[in-house]
């Protein structure tokens, strides 16, 4: 008989209730208070999973979040969550969990054949083996992808909600172990607004189940009293909440599990919550993580951390094994051995690597009263096989010995958890004797206390923490109390020596450093011999410290090996970066409410409902949504768009252009401001007139285009493209406030104040005349004011389609009446509505450039044939930069038209002599002649302005389309602009 079992008494579990759960298709039971790991361990389960590379069987190493091996998938369907640590999954009734990295089952695993070829899968195996012609990657990829990755993703949508909350506090305490509780009490009593985050389901940390006496009462009672007092003082106590990242200016992200992985959510549907906690001071009491010892086959099921064995005993009432041998280089194993013996669990021996005179004599004597203790002894090899260990071979100066055991409890000492301190920009000191880095030189409002500061003794931790709590309260406006800190007078169990080097004769290739990634000391040595001598290179080449545990138990051992190989001290070798998050997090937690419909905001024009009534296909334009066409029965998008375009060319069409950018600029210096923002002249514009304009970026390239209208002597309306509206708002504000703060001018973004409706076509004038009262239809590029359906409107005569056209501006809240009146009048003229597709066909045929099309951030005014419109007086943003030599390069991509000599042109086609030849340009927009036969397009072509008549191939291998095209002037419709005149 070997393996764990539940003891008849003890532990912080509710034995009166039984929880049922499934693991790999078998039914198990546990109790409230259990983790999945403790319940399975109590049921005698030893093998929890298989390793990533060699598929070696693995059991529990730890009892907390640092667990590298016992990863499970929890839940079913859309709630399935892979890579959950069995040690960090609190049991609930109905839990369904499965092990990972095995097929078809844990006991029989096909991938385990990798173990047999282990000597052939050294560090960097994939890098070395899969070198070769890139084409072969297509063969390797399937094999590698199938073998890669931990766990599997869920295949159904997550039904649950993830909430995001912002919060503030004076003092944030991370970790509610003895130090965290002491600090929180001190700060809260001193009047600070305190938040306490604890990743476990209950407060207490290392004191949970411990028989220590604090302030003369059992630890359990002290924890309960402390929690009650904190809550009474208004402290925000967050359990199952892990501080995962420490960002700038004391912003700490806290990940709260509202329900356990895979569990059904409550009425609010919330599975997890992300707190963005802005703190005045942050007290880090994260504790420390125990590290294993280096010996052969130290990854076998049954090799566990000493502190974990004690946690399973004290907190869960579980004996991890029937016969336990302990191997240690620290005091921690003594604490465990004493607890095990007192609970009646058989301890074969405690083997301490330290010599007897380096160990506290009283501690030795008290332990020896209970079990055999051998000093100066180091573990050499775990005995046993895939089902678990059966014993331990050890070596001492005098010879060798072996012990029968089903659990080898190891302690290579504690490693302070400095993750958050480092994320906050702190520094580290190296303690050679104990083999640890301790936090120093805090850069933000952080202070580390207790075990994460390298203060492993309980009495020290409590008093340090108390002082830190008072200081933090004082720094944030509190009044420190004069009370005395919590008192502990028991044994410290705080000594350790570094134990990174294995016993003589141990084969490093069999010593696992990182069990999650199957990295051995031999792999680290090989990487070093091959020249990977930086700690960052070692990590990436060997995969040490990657994946879900991020090397919580292994990084320091790997670093020490590198330092040893390099012959340099550890601090000179350095550490890899501590990056958030501290524990793996689900993507949902980061997405929060920004999922589904809420992924992006939706901007609706004032006429949105009028379009939606037609249920049109929509086009996303920035955050806006615009109808692509108003389809009739039997029409496709293409046929509807062509019908609408023909309607505009022959009668009249109306369309919603409310998404355009609109700015009102007023004041005595309004024209001056606009002549800085726009590259065209503005000041000569007569009142009541408008003109086309465009703006440059500071580097001289075209930024956006639009129209500018002089509403009054000192008042202008500037329009811009839909996509450029926010950019223009920024540019106008920059020019106005930063470059020319002394101008007497105000500029307002009125994009959403006005709806805008375009009316275009030979009968557009008739529609305006019929609908707008109090005004004659203005001439092309003039404006007028009138009333439509009782609504005051501004009418500007401008054309994007190439037809006589108007834009009617109406207050947004009254736009529907105007739209309705215009639509009815258009219908009376045999016209109707047109959408974005027809708009595009019309502007391509007319040869108007478009922001995002030809204005692509790489074209100059000259490239776009706009140079004659540049303001000769200069002074506008981007003017100077146009003098750069590259702007005069004759081979620049320039704006041209292309006319097909055959079939349709595909948008995005390359312009080439023949397939595979050098690319000379590309088709920016493809279209057709609306009323005649033939396909046309707009393009950017090398030196294109000098090449009319050239024949090229518009070639689109991705759309498997090509057409011979002739280069021409980019205007296919009414080049003289005669249709604008009445």
């Amino acid at each position, binding site marked *: 008989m070997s393996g764990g079992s539940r003891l008849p008494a003890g532990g912080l579990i509710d034995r009166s209730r039984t929880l049922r759960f499934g693991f790999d298709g078998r039914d198990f039971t546990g109790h409230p208070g259990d983790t999945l790991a403790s319940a399975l361990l109590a049921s005698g389960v030893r093998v929890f999973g298989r390793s990533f590379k060699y598929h070696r069987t693995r059991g529990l190493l730890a009892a907390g979040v640092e667990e590298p091996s016992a990863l499970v998938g929890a839940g079913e369907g859309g709630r399935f969550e892979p890579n959950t640590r069995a040690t960090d999954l609190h049991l609930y009734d109905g839990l369904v969990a499965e092990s990972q990295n095995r097929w078809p089952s844990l006991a029989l695993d096909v991938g385990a054949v990798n173990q047999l070829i282990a000597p052939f899968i050294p560090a960097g195996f994939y890098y070395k083996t899969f070198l070769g012609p890139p084409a072969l990657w297509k063969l390797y990829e399937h094999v590698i992808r199938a073998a890669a990755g931990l766990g599997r993703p869920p295949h159904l949508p997550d039904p649950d909600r993830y909430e995001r909350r912002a919060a503030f506090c004076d003092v944030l305490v991370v970790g509610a172990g003895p130090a965290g509780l002491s600090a929180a009490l001190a700060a809260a009593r001193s009047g600070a607004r305190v938040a306490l985050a604890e990743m476990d389901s209950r407060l207490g940390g290392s004191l949970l189940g411990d028989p220590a006496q604090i302030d003369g009462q059992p630890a359990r009672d002290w924890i309960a009293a402390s929690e009650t007092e904190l809550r009474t003082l208004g402290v925000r106590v967050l359990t199952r909440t892990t501080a995962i990242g420490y960002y*700038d200016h004391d912003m700490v992200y806290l990940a709260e599990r509202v329900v356990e992985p895979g569990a059904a959510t409550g009425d609010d549907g919330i599975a997890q919550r992300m707190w963005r906690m*802005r703190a005045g001071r942050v007290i880090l009491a994260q504790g420390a993580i125990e590290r294993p010892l280096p010996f052969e086959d130290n990854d076998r099921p049954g090799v566990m951390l000493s502190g974990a064995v004690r946690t399973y005993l004290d907190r869960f009432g579980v004996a991890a094994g029937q016969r336990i041998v302990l191997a240690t280089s620290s005091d921690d194993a003594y604490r465990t051995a004493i607890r095990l013996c007192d609970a009646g669990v058989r301890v074969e021996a405690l083997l301490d690597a330290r010599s007897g005179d380096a160990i506290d004599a009283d501690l030795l004597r008290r332990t020896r009263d209970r079990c055999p203790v051998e000093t100066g002894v180091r573990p050499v090899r775990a005995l046993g096989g895939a089902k678990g260990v059966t014993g331990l071979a050890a070596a001492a100066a005098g010879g060798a010995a072996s012990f029968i055991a089903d659990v080898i409890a190891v302690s290579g000492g504690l490693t302070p958890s400095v993750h958050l301190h480092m994320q906050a920009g702190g520094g580290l000191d190296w303690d050679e004797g104990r083999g640890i880095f301790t936090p120093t030189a805090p850069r933000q409002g952080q202070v580390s206390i207790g075990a994460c500061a390298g203060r492993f003794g309980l009495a020290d931790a409590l008093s340090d923490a108390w002082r830190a709590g008072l200081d933090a309260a004082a720094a944030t406006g509190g009044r420190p109390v004069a009370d005395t800190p919590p008192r502990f007078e028991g044994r410290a169990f705080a000594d350790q020596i570094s134990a990174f080097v294995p016993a003589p004769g141990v084969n490093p290739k069999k010593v696992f450093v990182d069990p999650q990634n199957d990295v051995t000391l031999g792999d680290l040595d090989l990487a070093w011999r091959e020249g990977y001598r930086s700690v960052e290179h070692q990590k990436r080449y060997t995969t040490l410290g990657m994946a879900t545990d991020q090397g919580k138990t292994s990084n320091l051992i790997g670093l020490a090996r590198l330092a040893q190989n390099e012959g340099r001290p550890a601090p000179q070798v350095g550490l890899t970066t501590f990056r958030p998050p501290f524990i793996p997090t689900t993507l949902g937690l980061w997405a929060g409410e920004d999922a589904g419909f809420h992924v992006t905001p939706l901007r609706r024009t004032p006429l949105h409902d009028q379009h939606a009534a037609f249920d049109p296909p929509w086009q996303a334009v920035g955050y806006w949504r615009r109808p692509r066409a108003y389809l009739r029965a039997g029409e496709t998008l293409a046929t509807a768009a062509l019908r609408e375009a023909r309607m505009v060319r022959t009668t009249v069409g109306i369309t919603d252009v409310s998404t355009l950018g609109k700015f009102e600029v007023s004041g005595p210096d309004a024209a001056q401001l606009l002549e800085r923002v726009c590259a065209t002249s503005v000041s000569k514009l007569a009142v009541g007139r408008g003109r086309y304009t465009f703006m440059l970026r500071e*580097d001289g390239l075209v930024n956006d285009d639009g129209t500018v209208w002089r509403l009054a002597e000192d008042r202008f309306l500037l329009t811009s493209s839909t996509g450029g509206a926010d950019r223009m708002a*920024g540019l106008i504000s920059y020019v*106005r406030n930063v470059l020319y703060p002394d101008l007497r001018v105000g500029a307002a973004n009125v994009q959403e104040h006005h709806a805008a409706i375009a009316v275009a076509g030979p009968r557009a004038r008739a529609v305006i005349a019929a609908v707008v009262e109090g005004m004659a239809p203005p001439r092309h590029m003039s404006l007028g004011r009138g009333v439509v359906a009782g609504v005051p409107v501004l009418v500007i005569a401008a054309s994007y389609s190439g037809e006589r056209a108007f834009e009617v501006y109406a207050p947004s809240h009254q736009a529907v009446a105007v739209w309705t009146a215009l639509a009815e009048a258009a219908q009376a003229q045999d016209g109707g509505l047109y959408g974005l597709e027809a708009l595009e066909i019309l502007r391509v045929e007319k040869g108007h450039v478009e922001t995002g099309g030809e204005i692509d951030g790489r074209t100059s005014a000259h490239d776009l044939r706009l140079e004659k419109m540049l303001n000769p007086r200069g002074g506008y*943003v981007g003017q*100077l*930069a146009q003098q750069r030599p590259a702007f005069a390069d004759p081979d620049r991509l320039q704006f041209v038209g292309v006319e097909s000599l055959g079939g349709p042109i595909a948008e995005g086609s390359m312009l080439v002599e023949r397939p595979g030849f050098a690319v000379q340009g590309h088709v920016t927009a493809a279209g057709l002649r609306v009323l005649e036969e033939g396909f046309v397009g707009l393009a950017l072509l090398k030196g294109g302005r000098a090449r009319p008549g050239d024949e090229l191939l518009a070639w689109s291998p991705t759309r498997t389309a090509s057409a011979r095209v002739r280069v021409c002037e980019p205007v296919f419709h009414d080049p003289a602009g005669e249709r604008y005149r009445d």
Partner: protein
Amino acid sequence: MMLIPCPHCGPRAHAEFTFDRPVEAITRPDDTADALVRNLFSRDNPRGHSRELWRHTYGCRAWIALTRDTATHAITDVQAWGAKA
């Protein structure tokens, strides 16, 4: 995420602001071509002290100049910038 003290609104989250440029990279249309090219294409990228133009885009929309340490993100000074309303 930095906490930026807007001179008009008080301390607000970094997400409300947009970085524009270092103050010395402000180029006026009537500057020399050399200055323009230097500011656009060959700016320094200092480690440490940096005086920068930011905008409280998703707040009061005002421009501010803040002095920031690029290595530590410590903000030592903030000034209102631009036209008086």
